[in-house]
């Protein structure tokens, strides 16, 4: 303040002082970064690097003295491990289904919330709260919903005359995965909805109007006008959702612990069991590396394709 009043800018329309020009950080600036840097290096970057290293060792819980480097042995075991492939397949089914349903349901809700409807405020409030709930509580809450005797789902379906015998949703071989998927969609939908809603608010109304004049129905206008304009948002939210779903742990751990008979054992649950129940640290780390590679490959491929399409 003193500075500006002491040296007033020349009266004749000088361009504004380029205050925003980035200054070069000096040594004391780096000193301010240090408190954040030390814990990040110690408790996230170092474990990450060390974790990748462990993937090539035979590290086991409680006997890290005679850990040795085994090169690709863990990955060889991984390729031959039927249980890993089964959990990997379940993980893919889970991640793809949940991501698609989150997108479809989130889009539906976002379109509705973009309309001038009366209960909009309530829906907007409710739409966010599943995201704010602790995952463990979400799991416990849905366990109450799915409870075979005291659960509301069986009660409602019985009242509607749709089932005659209570279903033990989370312990049924056929129903467990769909039941868990529903919970995944429930928790993950808010973020998708809010992001899509923000995207919708940037969609040009003129184009839609023009299409309406040309005789395009609502569905046509949605697919031909709205959806293409949401491409960036769509790529961002579906890729992130896919990765988050692929890495899911807490929710499913609380709901089923991977059961019944491994029907809902997502890769993270399998890796957790291998590491902390059976103590195969090296093997579980290799699983982590394998999943990172697959996730990044899918993501990279998908992103590149989308980019190419956007450029064309």
């Amino acid at each position: 303040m003193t500075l500006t009043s002491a040296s007033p800018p020349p009266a004749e329309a000088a361009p504004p002082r380029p205050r925003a020009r980035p200054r070069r950080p000096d040594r004391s600036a780096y000193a301010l970064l240090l408190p954040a840097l030390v814990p990040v290096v110690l408790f996230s970057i170092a474990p990450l690097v060390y974790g990748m290293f462990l993937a090539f060792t035979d590290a086991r819980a409680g006997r890290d003295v005679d850990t040795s480097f085994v090169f690709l042995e863990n990955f060889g075991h991984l390729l031959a491990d039927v249980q890993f492939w089964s959990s990997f397949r379940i993980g893919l089914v889970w991640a793809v289904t949940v991501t698609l349903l989150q997108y479809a349901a989130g889009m539906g809700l976002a379109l509705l919330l973009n309309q001038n409807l009366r209960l909009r405020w309530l829906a907007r409030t409710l739409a966010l709260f599943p995201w704010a709930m602790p995952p463990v509580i979400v799991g416990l809450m849905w366990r109450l919903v799915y409870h075979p005797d005291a659960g509301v789902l069986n009660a409602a379906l019985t009242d509607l005359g749709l089932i005659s015998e209570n279903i033990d949703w989370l312990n049924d071989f056929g129903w467990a995965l769909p039941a868990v998927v529903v919970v995944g969609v429930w928790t993950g939908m808010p973020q998708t909805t809010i992001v899509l809603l923000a995207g919708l608010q940037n969609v040009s109304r003129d184009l839609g109007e023009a299409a309406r004049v040309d005789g395009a129905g609502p569905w046509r206008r949605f697919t031909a006008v709205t959806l293409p304009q949401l491409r960036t948002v769509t790529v961002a939210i579906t890729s992130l959702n896919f990765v988050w779903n692929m890495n899911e742990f807490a929710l499913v751990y609380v709901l089923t612990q991977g059961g019944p008979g491994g029907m809902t054992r997502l890769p993270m649950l399998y890796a957790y069991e291998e590491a902390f129940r059976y103590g195969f640290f090296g093997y579980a780390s290799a699983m982590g590396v394998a999943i990172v590679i697959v996730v990044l490959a899918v993501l990279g491929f998908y992103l590149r394709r989308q980019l190419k399409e956007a450029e064309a």
Partner: protein
Amino acid sequence: MAAVTATRVRRAAARTGQYAALLCYLVFLAFPLVWLLSTALKTPQEMALLDPTWIPLEPTLANFAAAFGEQDLVGAARRSLTVAVCSAVLTVLLALPAAYVLARYRSVVNRIAMSWVLVSQVFPFILVIIALFMILRQFGLVNSLVGLVLVHATWCLPFVLWMLRGYLRGIPRVLEEAAAVDGAGRWRTLVSVVAPLAAPGVAAALMFGFISSWNEFLFALILLKDPGVQTLPLVLVAFTGPEGVARLGPLAAASLMAAVPSLVFFAFIQRRFRGGLVDGAVKG
């Protein structure tokens, strides 16, 4: 005329359809919570009924009393509270100076820091957590709340850094220049000029840190094996054992209470956070 009426009818039908769809969404979003509340208010006798009731016939607070009566739960809640408060404060203390530098200067560090924000969102935790477990064991920090606080603070840091950086950029630089002219050093400027101005942003960051730690499960599950140090989510999950219907009421009551801080936070921060979430996902 006929055409006008037809349009009006079609529009009314569309409206009805929209309201019906909205209602379905509301039910889907709300009924698990309603059911949680309903279960929490039921008596054991009512819980054992073959055909569960939607609304408790004789609402009772006995389940809440029972949940509070459990030494386990009260202690676990206290530990969760301690861990969440400490890690929120620690996160902000570590992040604020760094966020200030990132907001004011542009350098390679900036790009690296922002990449880390993104990368830390994407990595499967199993890859980190085994090594982290081994590192913390070296420091004697397994089964210790201090270890958990350090981990929570570290993993919450990237996002808080990002939040605070955005907030600090909005503060006019002139004020700092004035302080500099008056002879204040960088630390002095940061503490007595920037920090007070950033108070609302800091409050939001604190709340975010608190809630992330309060909600966190996996790190706690792996680091806290000893029942005497376990946090609330762990104890609640252990609560679900094979004891049957009798404990559903207290479990529901305890779950509801454990969700309260998150829901309050959400009510407070809803509007502001919507913006943050969207920026995060879209501009990411």
